């Protein structure tokens, strides 16, 4: 069992869980829930991007996959979060 606990994948999972808790607390600590808060949004979206990349890279084993797949997944991730943040900021009151 210790083989699995000390596994690099388990360390990735611990990091993923930790930053999930950070984003959960960030949203909770964002004060009044009914107001726009760009800081909270940027933090939680960046954390989501990091988590997505960790899952793609380590759990889906894309880090040892063909170059085209590494480029395709990374391009999707960067384009998606860049667009999400851009659309969000363009519409801010």
């Amino acid at each position, binding site marked *: 069992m210790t083989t699995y606990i000390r596994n690099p994948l388990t360390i990735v*999972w611990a990091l993923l869980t930790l930053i999930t808790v950070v984003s959960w607390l960030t949203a909770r600590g964002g004060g009044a829930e009914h107001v726009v808060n760009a800081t909270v949004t940027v933090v939680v979206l960046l954390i989501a991007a990091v988590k997505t990349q960790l*899952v793609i890279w380590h759990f889906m084993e894309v880090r040892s996959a063909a170059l085209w797949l590494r480029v395709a997944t990374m391009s999707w991730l960067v384009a998606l979060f860049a667009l999400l943040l851009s659309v969000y900021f363009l519409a801010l009151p």
Partner: protein
Amino acid sequence: MTDVAEGPLPSIGDTPRDTKARSDFPGESSMWFFVVGDLLIFGIYFIAYVYYRGQDHDLFLQSQARLNLDIGAINTVVLLTSSLFVALGTSAARAGKTADGVRLFVIALACGAAFPLLKLFEYIPEVIAGVTPGTNLFFMYYFVMTGLHLCHVMLGLVILCFIVGNLRGSAKPNISFVETGATYWHMVDILWLILFALLYLMR
């Protein structure tokens, strides 16, 4: 997991895969095309959601405040944990530790099955309170996106059952099938990570 104690498992986690010789990615290429396609389609939903959110901040924020943030966060950890056990099970199966692979995939399945149950605890009070997809644009996006994701989860659970059957039923399991199913399950995890940030967390 007694057979693990017999010695270190060198091929779990970060060793070159035996599949390297026959392909440049785990599992079937068709699954990877499906994954990239599905991510692109969901990506369009995500951007559309943020766009419409920007048109009416108050409506979206007030509706968002009615969601159960705690269940959303617990479900995120549940799916991440399930993904971990799928990744460990895939590595174990590849290393020939089939018995371990079965145990790890069964744990992954148990965690995965908790997701729809927790989702029910979220949906039922919402529907009882009169919240439906017709309530407003936020809840339309909420129910459609989480509903589509839930369909992906249910299909993923069936695939995980087939993986357990494959590992149990054969002396020489089909590793490519295990990797293909695992890839699908991790994609389901990724979609939820982003949905959680967009629907529950952003302000």
